[in-house]
């Protein structure tokens, strides 16, 4: 399944993208287990001194080359997707021009993204979330949409990229079964893949999506309109969202928090509380927390994400006590646990557990009621 805005891959472009996907899979299945053994042995030898472990591993050619090829695969992915998008740029721009589109997009020409977004290109995606040439530019959205499907190796709903949205609604159905949200906001909506998925379950609701990128939001608007889903996209900062107090009865995010900072997570929680009506629900869908953040292998993976994939907060976010943070901001009924991934939310129990079922099979949910 796909949608009309999705960039199209010609014969060789599709093969290049499948190659990157298969290269990443091979690296993680054929090479990574050995690296893990090396890292854990070094961890036992240095009995918990991670600095010493890191120095030992980085002295090994075999370890550095694994980091290097992983990093090259990520760069190659953005490169092949980017070139494919540039080839069809005019067609995509034309497709984004819709005579009377559903929903809206409201951009702020003076908007400055927060430092954790502006300082580096997260996931090595050239231009990051915020790059925008102005006018009718949609390239950054197209890059994130097609690139994201390859990056997720097809495990987030293929070319729809929307499993997290469906899984977030499943969590709402299971933990807050009486909720009937009529005003919904997604923070950090990106290309609006989750926003559209969530909106589909609540056709009477007014749905808003907030993000930092102008080109991203123009693309998101065209994508949603082509899917006949009215969404109101707004440029802004999740720490200071441009909406009045108590506007929404559902505020959610999908993999937003780990792209921010320690201070920002606290402010975003406070902002969710401000934006929600009494009784409203906050849900943050996040990457799985590490079972043991001090474990050597988690530290190695954290190093890779932070230093080679521009994810500086990867490890920090895993050490947060989300329940305490939500409670401190005044929330009740705080829930932290794992929701089994689904492509079709049902108003019945599907699988919520304190234990992770593994990446992409379940998502960490941090939810609470005001």
């Amino acid at each position: 399944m796909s949608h009309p805005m999705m960039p199209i891959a010609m014969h060789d472009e599709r093969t290049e993208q499948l190659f990157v996907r298969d290269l990443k899979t091979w690296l993680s299945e054929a090479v990574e287990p050995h690296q893990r053994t090396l890292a854990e042995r070094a961890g036992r030898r240095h009995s918990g001194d991670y600095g010493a472990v890191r120095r030992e591993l980085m002295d090994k050619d075999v370890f550095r080359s694994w980091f290097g090829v992983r990093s090259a695969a990520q760069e190659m992915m953005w490169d092949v997707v980017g070139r494919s998008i540039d080839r069809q740029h005019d067609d995509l721009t034309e497709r984004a021009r819709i005579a009377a589109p559903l929903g809206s997009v409201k951009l702020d020409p003076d908007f400055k993204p927060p430092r954790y977004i502006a300082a580096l290109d997260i996931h090595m995606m050239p231009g990051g979330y915020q790059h925008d040439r102005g006018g009718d530019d949609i390239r950054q959205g197209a890059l994130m949409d097609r690139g994201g499907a390859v990056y997720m190796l097809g495990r987030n709903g293929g070319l729809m990229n929307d499993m997290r949205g469906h899984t977030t609604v499943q969590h709402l159905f299971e933990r807050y079964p009486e909720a009937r949200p009529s005003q919904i906001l997604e923070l950090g909506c990106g290309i609006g893949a989750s926003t559209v998925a969530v909106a589909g379950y609540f056709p009477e609701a007014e749905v808003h999506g907030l993000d930092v990128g102008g080109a991203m939001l123009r693309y998101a608007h065209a994508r949603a309109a082509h899917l006949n889903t009215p969404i109101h996209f707004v440029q802004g900062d999740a720490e200071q969202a441009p909406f009045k107090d108590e506007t929404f009865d559902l505020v959610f995010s999908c993999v937003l928090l780990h792209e921010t900072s320690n201070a920002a997570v606290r402010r975003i929680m406070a902002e969710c509380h401000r934006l929600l009506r009494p009784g409203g629900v906050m849900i943050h869908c996040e990457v799985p927390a590490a079972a043991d953040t001090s474990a050597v292998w988690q530290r190695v993976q954290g190093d890779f994400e932070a230093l080679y994939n521009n994810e500086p907060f990867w490890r920090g976010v895993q050490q947060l006590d989300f329940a305490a943070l939500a409670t401190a901001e005044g929330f009740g009924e705080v829930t932290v646990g794992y929701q089994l991934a689904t492509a079709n939310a049902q108003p019945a129990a599907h699988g919520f557990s304190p234990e992770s079922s593994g990446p992409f099979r379940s998502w960490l949910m941090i939810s609470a009621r005001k």
Partner: protein
Amino acid sequence: MVVALLSELVVVRERLDTVERLSAAGGLFSREAIESYEPDTAAKHERSVLRARQIDKVLQPLRIDAEAAVGGTRDDDANAVLSEEMIS
């Protein structure tokens, strides 16, 4: 090594280009047919298997070096047997 590989790749691509041009000229199939070709499920699977095999074949030094660094490979056993036999 990379230059030699590049040379082979250039030859293969140019030969493919010749095949496509001759095919179009002879009315067999067009370039557009290649671009719009949709492999069926069986073809997709066969191509995936082929890609995985190519990746493992060309990049196997990465895997083999990692296996060797962990140790316990057949090479280690072979070296141990050799050194024992040479000593005895």
